[in-house]
């Protein structure tokens, strides 16, 4: 078995195991850390497909950004990591149903998609064509993405703003 195949297989196994931990583990902090590993395995899969830029973007934005936001939210909520919302075997029911539905949908989608041959294009650099696409055919989408990001920024900030009374909040 070629080394690449071994790598892809290990990424898949790691991703599946950590996704299972994310879905089923009662401790929410462990679930967040397992999410780190599943995102790392997705980045590994991108790299194995030759999309090196996307793998790095996955690391920067997902692992470096979104996981940090999730961890901040968990650490700032009181006792959320000790709370158990559902006890016993009942906590497996809903995640299991949702994951089975998503799995069936994805398998059907994958059967219907026409997978192009990637051996030739795998070794081409990926940053240049992405840039060409962003200023070429997708230029308007590029500006629209900026507006979506701006609205997301302002919306999130308005929601997360601390509400002060007359005294200023203590700067910790």
């Amino acid at each position, binding site marked *: 078995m070629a080394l690449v195949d071994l790598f892809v297989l290990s990424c898949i196994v790691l991703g599946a195991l950590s996704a299972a931990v994310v879905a089923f583990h009662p401790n929410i902090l462990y679930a967040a850390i397992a999410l780190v590993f599943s995102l790392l395995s997705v980045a590994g899969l991108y790299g194995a497909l030759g999309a090196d830029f996307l793998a790095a973007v996955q690391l920067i934005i997902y692992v470096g950004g979104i996981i940090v936001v999730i961890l901040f939210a968990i650490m700032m909520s009181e006792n959320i990591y000790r709370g158990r919302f559902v006890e016993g075997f009942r906590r497996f029911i809903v995640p299991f149903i949702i994951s089975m539905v998503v799995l069936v949908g994805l398998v059907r989608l994958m059967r219907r998609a026409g997978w192009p041959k990637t051996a030739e294009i795998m070794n081409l650099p990926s940053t240049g064509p992405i840039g060409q696409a962003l200023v070429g055919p997708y230029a308007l989408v590029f500006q629209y993405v*900026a507006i979506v990001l701006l609205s997301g920024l302002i919306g999130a900030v308005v929601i*997360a703003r601390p509400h002060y009374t007359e005294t200023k909040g203590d700067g910790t």
Partner: protein
Amino acid sequence: MLQELGNALSFVILAAILPPLILFISKFFRPSYPHSGKLTTYECGETPKGSAYVQFNNHFYLVAIVFLVFDVEVALLFPVMTLFRDAVLKGGPEAAQVFLLSFGFLFILFVGLIYEWKKGDIDWIKVATNRKTALESGELKSRKIPAEQRTV
């Protein structure tokens, strides 16, 4: 390209294996006398009071959210910036196209930063949004030293 990615990955894997390896090897050499005093958390020598939970300033979360948006922006600008040099050296309208599109993107998010600044969201300790009325009402003390007390 896969060869290079494999090289980079082997560096990361080696660096990730090092801490457990070092700690495992040192397990054979180091003493281990667990004692309840050593196992309690350290609070400058006092016995620890309360749980390890502190009420945090909301600002940490705000900074994380603003960082996320700007991180996405920087990551999206990278592939566009690689085109700029070739576009300029080749001449023609392509350089203008790249320039205007990328800096339009940048400007839209820069407007967001200015909004945050004016509303006081990126201050660590939030000062009043209107500085003048806050100075007048006494909520915010002006730091200007009056002329007669200045020594410098």
